[in-house]
């Protein structure tokens, strides 16, 4: 057992941290135009070689296979600096992974290199108005047509809606078998019958919206994997990228702790620094301890994922659950230490407080993680005496 970092990891961490310092500035004011700022960041992430980590080496990636640990290091460092930069990276990974996972050689060769360079943006379209955690309720339909499929339905809460070029869309080819009848398709943004129905403003803004498919034709060669393999592709993708959500939470939490330490040293009340009060010291100690626990769980989960350990899925759920919940508490405590200054619009804590919240919901809510964990605990033989 060795908890020291890989040789390459500190180099990557330093590289991303330097990128954050030179590309994000103070970052405390919201961008004037969300979509253009999102595209600018994605383009820079591509040009500077970071997007390349979301695809395998053969198609322009850095490592031979995609490494969850690399993605975690990158997301933590980006989230430390900017939620938007983190989301642009995270969504590119989410939209590319199904193609890297299930795409044919031809599909991979066509779609992955421009995604690795950040020249094109990807999106992952699974969620629907009536199908959130319950994926089996998906009602977008893919009907067979000459040389392909016709898609009809609506997707919402789709990150990168409106700015992505390559959408991985999950639709039912066999509704009577529910989740088992799902298939995955690559839909290009200029396809006839495809439109962005609505753009949805968020608590922590990033480009997100609803998509409509009106008899949208998808040629046979853009089906991803076999018919009926959609659920497997979606769940495998979410399972792999779940620990990276935990890593983003660690990034927000680390920033919140650093800000709290700095503020409590400088801010003086009752004739002394806040840091001289034991009540503040205890808060800082609890925050640091929770952060360390979150970081270890995320590191362990990502490492197990990369080694295809059979218990990786449950560890990944634990990492996502604990890291996102802990980050919420850490950010909240940091804001409390900042007092009223922390709720001023544009203050770093005001921003972190908004940024951290959705992580407990997207890519599997905390409650869904708990179900995965308890299912794992309760399966198998009943222990004696229970």
């Amino acid at each position, binding site marked *: *057992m*060795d908890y020291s970092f890989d040789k390459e990891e500190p180099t990557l961490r330093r590289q991303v941290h330097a990128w954050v310092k030179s590309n994000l500035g103070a970052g405390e004011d919201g961008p004037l135009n969300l979509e253009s700022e999102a595209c600018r960041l994605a383009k820079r992430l591509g040009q500077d070689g970071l997007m390349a980590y979301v695809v395998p080496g053969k198609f322009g990636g850095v490592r031979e296979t995609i490494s969850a640990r690399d993605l975690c290091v990158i997301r933590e460092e980006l989230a430390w600096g900017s939620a938007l930069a983190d989301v642009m990276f995270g969504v590119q990974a989410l939209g590319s992974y199904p193609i890297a996972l299930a795409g044919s050689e031809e599909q991979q060769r066509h779609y992955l290199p421009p995604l690795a360079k950040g020249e094109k943006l990807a999106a992952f379209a699974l969620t629907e108005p009536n199908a959130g955690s319950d994926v089996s309720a998906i009602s977008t339909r893919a009907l067979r047509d000459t040389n392909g499929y016709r898609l009809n339905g609506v997707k919402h809460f789709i990150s990168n809606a409106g700015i992505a070029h390559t959408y991985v869309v999950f639709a039912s080819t066999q509704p009577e078998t529910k989740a088992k009848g799902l298939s995955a398709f690559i839909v290009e943004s200029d396809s006839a019958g495809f439109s962005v129905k609505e753009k949805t403003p968020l608590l922590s803004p990033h480009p997100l919206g609803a998509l409509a498919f009106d008899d949208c034709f998808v040629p046979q060669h853009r089906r991803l994997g076999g018919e009926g393999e959609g659920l497997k592709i979606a769940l495998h993708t979410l399972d792999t990228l779940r620990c990276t959500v935990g890593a983003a939470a660690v990034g927000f939490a680390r920033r919140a702790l650093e800000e709290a330490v700095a503020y409590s040293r400088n801010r003086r009340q009752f004739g002394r620094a806040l840091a001289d009060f034991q009540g503040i010291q205890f808060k800082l100690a609890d925050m640091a301890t929770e952060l360390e626990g979150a970081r270890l769980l995320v590191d362990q989960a990502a490492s197990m994922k990369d080694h295809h350990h059979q218990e990786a899925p449950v560890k990944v759920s634990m990492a996502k659950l604990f890291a996102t919940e802990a980050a919420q508490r850490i950010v909240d405590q940091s804001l409390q230490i900042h007092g009223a200054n922390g709720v001023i619009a544009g203050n770093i804590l005001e921003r972190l407080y908004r940024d951290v919240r959705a992580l407990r919901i997207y890519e599997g809510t905390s409650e869904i993680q708990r179900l995965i964990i308890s299912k794992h605990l309760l399966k198998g033989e009943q222990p004696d005496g229970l």
Partner: protein
Amino acid sequence: MDFELPAELAEVQKLARDFSEKEIAPGAAKDDKEHTFRKDLVAKMGTLGFFGCLIPEQYDGNDLGFLAHALISEEIARVHSPIRVLVPRR
């Protein structure tokens, strides 16, 4: 970063688990009820090296380190805490 236990420590963990389940657990409830202490367990644990993880080999310890020490403590605590207390701390 590697989160797997090295083979040597996985063996220590298994040894401690087997000993805890076979030797300590069966008498645990009786110890609690009748306020008894099984001195013979101490000798057995000593022979197995449970007390020597933090002691250098030149003083007859095994110097396996804190992780081995923690693994042994965890396995014993799982079945009977009064015996776990015997595993010394430096």
